[in-house]
């Protein structure tokens, strides 16, 4: 810590500080009420048994112990599903959005804007819309677009029940999630790449960089670390926020044979369907920790190391 900073920390709360807090007040109030306090409540409830009607009773670590030793659905389906899904949609979606941004940066401005708009559009649609579109595409009768293609090509004799059986469910969830994953993280990376100083590339070629892969590793990524970090956070958050997708597509919680059951669905299942709020809160805390863990990794990769 620099001395100047230490001085600032030690000084008393002044009128100027008061003014600053006054201007921040609306944000602090809303942020605390709807983000911070719910997180704290979830942490507190996770150590209790709470059925909404009676007062919560303290049970210590029981919820966590049950979750990791006895909850068969969680251990057998939810945990593996969540990791598979989150790894593909999070880091996978992230790599794809970087590569797309990288290619877009290398074409002319007008086609770039049009193509970027096409790629970005799905991410601004929101849950309802995504559900309506993809339920029509994967509908289990011959009017479903995908089924009709398969039928016409003679690949199947009867329409496949894509959304009601477990065979392809996870695959479809991943496709739909990747489809809608090119959001503001993607836009951030486009402008990150566009803003890299041209001379860096020229210098790098003088210094002996030979191909595009080396160029990405040694110039592009290090020059836009802040955007890479922002993009990573957005990709991770998006992956976990899309947890409802399976329930939207199948129209039921749990999803067919738990094939698309993610940790967020498990929370809803216990919280809103079984009213075991303490247990659901414990799952929430695990989820928040997992998201935080993913972000720590991203921070290690792209954050400032000082």
């Amino acid at each position: 810590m620099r001395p100047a900073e230490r001085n600032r920390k030690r000084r008393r709360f002044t009128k100027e500080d008061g003014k600053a807090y006054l201007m921040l007040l609306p944000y602090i109030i809303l942020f605390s009420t709807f983000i911070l306090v719910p997180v704290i409540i979830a942490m507190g409830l996770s150590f209790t048994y709470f059925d909404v009607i009676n007062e919560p009773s303290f049970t210590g670590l029981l919820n966590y112990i049950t979750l990791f030793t006895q909850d068969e659905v969680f251990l057998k389906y939810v945990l593996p599903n969540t990791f598979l899904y989150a790894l593909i949609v999070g880091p996978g979606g992230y790599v794809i959005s970087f590569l797309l941004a990288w290619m877009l940066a290398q074409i002319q401005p007008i086609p770039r804007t049009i193509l970027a708009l096409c790629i970005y559009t799905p991410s601004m649609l929101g849950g309802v819309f995504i559900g309506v579109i993809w339920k029509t595409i994967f509908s289990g009768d011959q009017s479903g677009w995908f089924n009709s293609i398969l039928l016409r090509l003679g690949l199947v004799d009867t329409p496949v029940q894509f959304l009601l059986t477990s065979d392809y469910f996870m695959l479809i969830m991943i496709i739909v999630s990747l489809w809608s994953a090119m959001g503001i993280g993607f836009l951030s990376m486009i402008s990150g790449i566009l803003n890299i100083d041209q001379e860096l590339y020229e210098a790098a070629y003088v210094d002996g960089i030979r191909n595009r892969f080396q160029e990405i590793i040694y110039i592009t990524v290090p020059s836009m670390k802040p955007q890479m970090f922002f993009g990573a956070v957005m990709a991770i958050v998006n992956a976990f926020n899309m947890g409802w997708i399976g329930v939207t597509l199948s129209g039921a919680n749990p999803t067919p044979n738990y094939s698309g059951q993610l940790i967020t669905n498990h929370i809803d299942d216990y919280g809103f369907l079984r009213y075991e709020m303490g247990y659901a809160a414990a799952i929430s805390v695990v989820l928040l920790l997992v998201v935080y863990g993913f972000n720590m990794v991203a921070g290690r990769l792209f954050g400032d190391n000082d």
Partner: protein
Amino acid sequence: MKKRRQRRGDFQGSRINPRNFSRGQIKFYVILIPLAVFMILPVIMLVNRAFMPLGELFAFPPHIVAHNPTMNNFKSLFALSSTTGVPMLRYLLNSVLVTVMTVALNLVITILGAYTFAKKNFKGKGALFEINQLALMFVPTAVAISRYLVITRLHLTDTWLVHVLPLAAMPVGLFLVKQFTDQIPDALIEAAVMDGAKELTIVRKIIVPLIRPALATSIVLTFQQVWMATEASNNYVNNDTMRTLAYYLNSLSTNNAIAAAGMTAAASVLLFLPNLIIFVCMQSQVMNTMSHSGIK
């Protein structure tokens, strides 16, 4: 050999953001165009469904483009009242009202917050901004339950505020606007202080005009969230007259999927178009803001 590398060097150096077309770009177009089509095609198909008569909706093979476009789906959508007797127009008005209120409130909060974080030194600033940066990673679905408990305790259920308040503080928006405000020179603000300008005058007359692109971005992001939100209508409101279009569309598509296929598509278009128009109008501001979006 030497000559070849020289030529490649020149070519590589001018590749980013090229003004003109060159043959080297063809490979990117070959990958990007099919991908862009894959991304946008489902949207185009759904928009076309909104204009299809019933016969075409379930035709085999399915039509991508409406052969006999009609406005009937929109007409029946507006004519249809839900089982509780709430006309569709009511949902639309609710959505507009809720969205306008949230975007306006969010804008004021974000401007004040971003300015304070960017240009003020105060006790606890570092810690507070750190918390906000952590909140970028926040996954709302994780705490839906405790949020519900907070909202019930505050007696916000069945009020208009329950649509507005939970979405009015948006960590991403504040973060982006703050990063953008950072680049305004302090001298500009100091000069205004010398001239005796009050804090709010500085914000209104100096800061706001200079950070317009970032504010546009914040508006776009807030709009997208509120306009499409179903959480409040689903969980916190019991009265159909206070629910929104996104909720109504959702119930149309889940309750009577087949009978309402055309109307669902029509309602989707009504929801989607404002979103698209706003983004297209503001896309250059959004891109401008994004160049300051990095987390350091």
